[in-house]
C-alpha cells in the first residue's frame, strides 16, 4: 500500500514537512512500530526540472530493432525532438512527459544525448515511476490523448509546459507500507491515518458529507437483486446522471499516481480514489449499457464465460486443475437485469459495460461480499486485483453508503473543476441488504491484559489506548470487581486495585480480525508500543538436556568426521528416476504438486543424493573424498497413513584405496565409539530376494546386511561397495571402488550396547598364540573367528585377524587366515603348559567344526 504523506495529512494533522527527510524517517519509524512496516519511502518533487509535456507527432520503426522505435515529439521547440523509446503504450497525438537532455531524474539519473542503433535520442520519454510521480512502470505516463498530431489540446495541457506545473506537483513523500493480512482496515489511507493519530495522540476524523440528490428517484432508473445472500451480504447501487467526460482535478490525479494507479477519467478515478482513501472497492457501470437497467448477484452457471476489463475471456463456475480434472465451483458474478454476467464479483468488472468518454449515466455498485467467496474465485482465476485483495480480507460492512457519498462528491468536484455541469445524484439508493454483520462485543479483563503483557496498566489507560482506534469500551456490570486492594494472589497484580476491572469492548466494524479478548490485548500492546514493554528474564525450572537422540547423533557425527568424512546435506525431494538409476525400483512417496518432475518424489534412500554430491566433486577434480549425511528417508505405508519416515546415516567412501573393507572398518569404529556390543553385530551376506531397500545400489557380491543380535536379529543397515553399474549410471565409473555404509539410526538407537561395567585388567604378562588355518571360500571368516573365541575361553583377551593370504602354497577355493590370540590370567602368569593346552583346544575345535585345516 503506497501512502502519500499529503493524503495522510488530510486526516491527521502531522507537522511532518515532505522535504524534511529526518522527519519523514521518524514518521516511518512510527509506522514500523505500529506493525505497518515501511518497505520504502519515495520523495516526490525532486528532479523534475527539464521534464516537459510533449505531444507525439510521429512514430517510426528503427531498422533492425524490434524493441525500440523512433518517436518525433513536439515539445514546443521550433523543430520536433527525436527520441528513441522502448515503450509501446502510446499513439500519435498522445501527450507524454519528456525528460530533456541535461535533466536529472529522481534518483540522480542524468539524461544525456545518446545514440541507439545509429539513431540519436535527444532525451527520454518517461513512465510515472521514472519521474517519481507514481508506481507505474509498465509504459509511458500518458497525460492526454488528442488523437492527432495537431488536434486541440485539453484545458491545462500545453506542449513544452513543465510537467511539475501541469501536474501541480507539490513536494511529497510516499510510504510503501506492507499491511499484514489481518489488518484490512489499513488497506486505505484513513485506516493508516487512524493508527498514526492514535499513536501520536493527534486528532483524527473522516468526514464525508452526504451529497445533495435531486430529480428522478434511483428506483426509476434501475434495480438490484441478490440471489446469493450468503455470498453477497449487502449491495448498494447509486445512480448518477448528467456526467460530463472530464478529467479528474489535478490533486486527485496526482494522488492516484502517487498511490500507483493511473488516472483515466473522473468516474473511474473517483471509484479508485474512494477505494484508496476509505478501503471500499466499488464499480461504476454505464447505465445505458446495462441490460434491463438492473444489477443482480448470483453464482455463475458452470462453464459460463465473461470477458473482463483486462481482456481475458474467463470461464466461471467450473474449475480445471493442473491435472486436468474439472469440478463445478461457486463463482459469484454480477449480472444485469436480464441475467447476463457483467462482472466477476469483487474481482473484476466486465469489458462490455466499461465506462468510456461517451458515458453520461452510471450505476455505482458498492458491495460487501463474503471474503472466502472472493478469495477462492480470485485464486482460481489467478487474479489479484486491488478490489479482490480488500474483499478477501474484509471490507467495513458499515462503510458502503459513505463510500458512495464520497464517490458522488468527487464526481461533483471533477465537474466543477472541468467547467462542466454538475452531475445529478438520484435520490434513494438501491439497497439490498440481506445479511447484516452485527457489531461484536468482547469482554476484556484489565487484569488479563496486564498478565499477558507483563504491564501494570490501569483500566483508564487501557480504555484510552483503545478508544482512538475505534474500540469503545465501558465498565462491565454484574462482574465482581474484587475489593479495592485487589486479589493479592491474582497474576500481574500491581496494587492499584484496578486490575479486576472488566471492560465491555465494542469492536469497530472495520476490524473483522478482532474475535477474542487476546486480539484486543494485542491492540493494547501495539499502541503502548512493543518497545516500551519491559523485557523480563524468564528462567526455565529445568536442567536443559540434549536428550539421548541428539546426543547420539552428535557422537556419530564426530566419529564420522574423525574417520575423514565430510558432512553433506542433500535435498529430500528427488528425481523419481534417481532411485531406479541407483538400483531396483521401489515404491516411493510422490508429491501431489511438484514444481518440476526432477523434484517430485521423497527420497527413500540416501545413496542417490550422496552419489550426486560425489559426482559434483568429481566434476570439479576432487574425486578422492569421504562424505556422509544424516537425514530422513520416506517409504509409503499400506493403507492411508503418513509415510514411514526413518532417519538414516549414509557414508560414501571414495578415497583412494577405499572399498568394502573400508566400510567394514567404518562400521567397526562406529560400533566401538557408539558403545555397541560388537559381538552382537553380524554381517549377513546371504541376502534373500527380493533385495531389501536398504541394500539398494550395492555390489551384489561385495555387500552384507548389518544385523543386530545373533541369528535373525533386526536389520541395522547395509554395507559394502556401490554397484559399478550404479556408478556408471551416475557418470562416475572408472575411478575405482566406492565403499558404502548405511544405517537406520532408529534401529541403531535400539541396538544392544556393551556392558558398561569395568572389567579388571591383568597385571600379569600375557602370551600370544598365532594360528593359521586354510579355510574354504564358502565359509565366512567370521565363522572361524567365532569358533576361535568360543574355544579360547575366558582366558582369551583378544582375537585379531593378522593376515588373509591367497597364492602359492594355498589351494584355490580357499585362503589362509592368520589369527593372533592373546591369553592372560588375572591371578597368575600362564605357564607354557597352560598356553599349549589352550592352543590345542582351539585347533581341535576349528578342525572339528569347520572345513578348515591348520597350516604348517
Amino acid at each position, binding site marked *: 500500500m503506497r501512502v502519500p504523506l499529503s493524503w495522510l495529512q488530510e486526516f491527521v494533522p502531522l507537522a511532518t514537512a515532505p522535504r524534511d527527510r529526518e522527519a519523514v524517517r521518524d514518521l516511518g519509524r512510527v509506522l*514500523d*512500530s*505500529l*506493525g505497518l512496516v515501511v518497505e520504502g519511502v519515495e520523495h516526490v518533487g525532486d528532479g523534475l526540472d527539464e521534464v516537459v509535456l510533449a505531444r507525439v507527432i510521429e512514430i517510426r520503426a528503427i531498422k533492425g530493432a524490434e524493441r525500440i522505435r523512433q518517436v518525433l515529439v513536439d515539445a514546443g521547440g521550433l523543430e520536433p525532438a527525436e527520441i528513441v523509446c522502448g515503450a509501446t503504450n502510446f499513439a500519435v497525438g498522445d501527450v507524454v512527459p519528456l525528460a530533456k537532455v541535461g535533466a536529472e531524474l529522481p534518483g540522480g539519473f542524468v539524461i544525456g544525448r545518446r545514440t541507439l542503433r545509429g539513431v540519436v535520442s535527444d532525451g527520454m520519454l518517461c513512465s510515472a515511476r521514472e519521474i517519481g510521480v507514481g508506481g507505474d512502470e509498465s509504459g509511458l505516463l500518458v497525460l492526454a490523448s488528442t488523437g492527432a498530431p495537431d488536434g486541440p489540446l485539453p484545458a491545462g495541457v500545453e506542449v513544452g509546459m513543465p510537467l511539475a506545473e501541469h501536474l501541480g506537483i507539490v513536494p511529497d513523500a510516499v510510504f510503501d507500507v506492507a499491511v*499484514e493480512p*489481518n489488518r484490512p482496515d489499513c488497506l486505505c489511507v484513513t485506516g493508516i491515518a487512524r493508527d498514526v493519530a492514535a499513536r501520536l495522540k493527534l486528532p483524527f476524523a473522516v468526514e464525508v458529507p452526504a451529497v445533495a440528490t435531486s430529480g428522478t428517484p434511483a428506483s426509476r432508473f434501475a434495480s438490484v437483486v441478490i440471489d446469493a445472500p450468503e455470498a453477497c451480504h449487502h449491495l448498494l447501487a447509486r445512480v448518477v446522471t448528467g456526467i460530463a467526460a472530464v478529467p479528474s482535478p489535478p490533486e486527485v490525479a496526482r494522488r492516484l499516481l502517487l498511490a500507483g494507479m493511473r488516472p483515466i477519467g473522473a468516474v473511474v478515478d473517483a471509484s479508485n480514489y474512494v477505494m484508496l482513501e476509505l478501503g471500499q472497492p466499488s464499480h461504476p457501470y454505464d447505465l445505458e449499457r446495462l441490460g434491463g437497467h438492473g444489477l443482480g448477484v448470483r453464482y455463475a452457471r458452470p462453464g459460463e464465460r465473461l470477458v473482463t476489463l483486462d481482456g481475458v475471456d474467463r470461464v466461471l463456475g467450473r474449475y480445471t486443475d493442473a491435472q486436468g480434472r474439472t469440478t463445478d465451483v461457486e463463482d459469484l458474478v454480477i449480472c444485469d437485469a436480464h441475467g447476463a454476467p457483467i462482472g466477476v464479483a469483487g474481482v473484476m468488472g466486465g469489458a462490455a459495460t466499461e465506462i468510456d468518454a461517451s458515458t453520461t449515466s452510471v450505476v455505482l455498485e458498492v458491495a460487501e461480499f463474503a471474503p*472466502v467467496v472472493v478469495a477462492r474465485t480470485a485464486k482460481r482465476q489467478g487474479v489479484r486485483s486491488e478490489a479482490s485483495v480488500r474483499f478477501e480480507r474484509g471490507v467495513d460492512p458499515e462503510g458502503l453508503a459513505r463510500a458512495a457519498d464520497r464517490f458522488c462528491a468527487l464526481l461533483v468536484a471533477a465537474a466543477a473543476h472541468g467547467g462542466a455541469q454538475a452531475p445529478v445524484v438520484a435520490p434513494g439508493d438501491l439497497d439490498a441488504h440481506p445479511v447484516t454483520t452485527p457489531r461484536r462485543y468482547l469482554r476484556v479483563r484489565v487484569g488479563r491484559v496486564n498478565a*499477558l*503483557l*507483563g*504491564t501494570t496498566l490501569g483500566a483508564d489507560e487501557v480504555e484510552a489506548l483503545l478508544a482512538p482506534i475505534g474500540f469503545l469500551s465501558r465498565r462491565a456490570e454484574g462482574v465482581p470487581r474484587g475489593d479495592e486492594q485487589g486479589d493479592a494472589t491474582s*497474576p*500481574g497484580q500491581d496494587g492499584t486495585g484496578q486490575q479486576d476491572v472488566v471492560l465491555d469492548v465494542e469492536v469497530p466494524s472495520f476490524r473483522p480480525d478482532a474475535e*477474542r479478548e*487476546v486480539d484486543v490485548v494485542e491492540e493494547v*500492546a*501495539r499502541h503502548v508500543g*512493543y518497545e516500551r*514493554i*519491559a*523485557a*523480563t*528474564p*524468564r*528462567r*526455565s525450572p*529445568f536442567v*536443559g*538436556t*540434549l536428550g539421548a*537422540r541428539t546426543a547420539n547423533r552428535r557422537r556419530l*557425527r564426530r566419529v564420522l*568426521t*574423525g574417520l575423514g568424512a*565430510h*558432512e*553433506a*546435506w*542433500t*535435498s*529430500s*525431494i528427488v528425481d523419481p528416476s534417481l532411485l531406479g538409476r541407483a538400483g531396483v525400483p521401489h515404491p516411493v*512417496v*510422490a*508429491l*501431489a*504438486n511438484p*514444481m518440476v518432475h526432477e523434484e517430485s518424489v*521423497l527420497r527413500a534412500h540416501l545413496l542417490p543424493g550422496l552419489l550426486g*554430491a560425489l559426482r*559434483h566433486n568429481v566434476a*570439479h577434480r*576432487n574425486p578422492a573424498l569421504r*562424505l*556422509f549425511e544424516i*537425514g*530422513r528417508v*520416506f517409504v509409503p505405508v499400506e493403507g492411508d497413513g*503418513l509415510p514411514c*519416515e526413518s532417519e538414516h546415516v549414509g557414508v560414501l567412501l571414495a578415497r583412494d584405496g577405499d572399498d568394502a573393507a573400508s566400510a567394514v572398518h567404518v562400521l567397526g569404529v562406529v560400533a566401538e565409539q557408539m558403545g555397541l556390543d560388537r559381538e552382537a553385530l553380524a554381517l549377513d551376506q546371504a541376502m534373500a530376494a527380493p533385495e531389501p531397500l536398504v541394500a539398494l545400489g550395492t555390489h551384489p557380491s561385495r555387500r552384507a546386511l548389518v544385523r543386530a543380535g545373533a541369528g535373525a536379529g533386526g536389520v541395522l543397515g547395509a554395507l559394502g561397495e556401490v554397484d559399478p553399474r550404479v556408478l556408471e549410471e551416475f557418470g562416475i565409473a572408472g575411478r575405482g571402488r566406492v565403499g558404502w555404509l548405511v544405517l537406520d539410526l532408529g534401529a541403531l538407537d535400539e541396538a544392544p550396547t556393551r556392558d558398561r561395567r569395568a572389567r579388571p585388567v591383568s597385571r600379569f604378562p600375557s602370551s600370544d598364540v598365532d594360528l593359521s588355518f586354510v579355510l574354504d571360500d564358502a565359509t565366512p571368516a567370521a565363522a572361524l573367528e567365532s569358533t576361535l573365541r568360543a574355544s579360547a575361553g575366558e582366558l582369551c583377551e583378544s582375537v585379531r585377524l593378522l593376515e588373509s593370504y591367497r597364492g602359492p602354497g594355498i589351494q584355490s577355493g580357499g585362503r589362509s587366515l592368520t589369527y593372533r590370540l592373546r591369553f592372560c590370567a588375572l591371578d597368575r602368569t600362564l605357564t607354557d603348559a597352560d598356553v599349549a593346552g589352550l592352543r590345542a583346544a582351539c585347533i581341535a575345535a576349528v578342525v572339528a567344526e569347520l572345513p578348515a585345516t591348520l597350516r604348517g
Partner: protein
Amino acid sequence: MSSMEHVAPPQPGEVGAFETTATERVASVDDLASLDALVAELTGKRSPFALWKRSLGGLAHGDRRAIGQELNEALARVEALVESRRALLAAAAREVLVVADRLDLTDVVATPGAGHLHLVTQVREELEDVFVGMGYEIADGPEAETEWYNFTALNVPRDHPARSMQDSFYLATGDRESYLLRTQTSPVQVRLLERGTLPLYAIAPGRVYRRDTADARHLPVFHQIEGIVVDRDVTFGDLAGTVETFVTAIFGTGIATRLRPAYFPFTEPSAEFEITCTICTGSGCRTCGQTGWIELGGCGLIHPAVLEASGVDPERWSGFAFGFGIDRLAIMRHEIDDIRSFVENDVRFLTQF
C-alpha cells in the same frame, strides 16, 4: 688374596708419571666406546691405581697415609678428566645423530585429515547448546505431516494462502486427510502440547519445506528452529527477555533486539524480532537497507486457540513461541552469497567451516 700377584708400592714420581700418561691418553680418545675401554684400563680393578692401593697395606703408617693421599688425589683428577671427556664426546655423538636425523617438516606428504561438519549442523549445534544452557529440551517431529498438525491445530484458517498448493508441497497419498511436508517446525509445538507435560521449555530444530524455486536466497528445503515455552503467567515481557537472552548468547553483547508487531495465525500478540545489523553494527548499510536492523524471525504469545486445540487451558497456562531460519543465520554470519552452496556439497565449500 694369595692368588693375587704382589705389586710393589709406587716409587716416588711413578704416580705422577702414570697420571701424566693417563691424562694424555684420555684427552686423545675420540669416541665413547674407546673411552669406556680406556677407563677400565686406567681406573679399573686391574689398573695401576687399583694395584697400588692394594699394596698400601704393607707400608708403614706414615707412608701409607702420604702415598694413599697422593693416589686418591691423582685418581680423582683422572676420573674428573674422564667425566668431562665423556660429556664432550656424548655431546659430539648426539650432534652427529641430530644432524643425520634432520627432517624438513615442510617436506611432508599430506595424509587425509578429519572431515568437516556441515556449516548448517555447526550453527544448529551452537543454537542447541545455547538453549540447553537456558534449560530447554530438544524436541523433534516428523517432516511429513498431517494438515491438522501443520495448519489446523495452529489456528491457520482453512482458506489461508499458506495452505494453498502454491505454497506447500502436498503428498499424493492420504485420501482421508491431506498430508504435506511441514512448512514450518511449528507442528512440533502441537505434538509437545499434546504430550501434556507442563511446564514446557523446548526447542525443535529441523528441516522444513516450501514450494519456492531455488535461487540465491531460497531453497525449497531448508532448516528452522522453533522455540516454545508454556508455563504459569508467561508474559509478552518474558518473550522479549528470552529473545534478548538468546540473541546475546548467539551474537554477543553488542547486538540488540527489538520486537515489531506482525501477524501469525498461531500467536497473539505476534511480533517479528529484529537484531542490530551484524554487518554495520547498527550504523546503516546496504544489507539492512540503512535501517541498522535486520529481521531474524517471528514470535509471539501462543494463541489461546492453539493451546485449546491441544487440550491446554489458556486461562491456567500461557506461553510464547519463536522461530527462525538456521540456514539464514549461517548465511548472514558467514556472508554467503548463494544459499545453494549448502546443497551442492562442494568439498571446497564444506572444508571452509
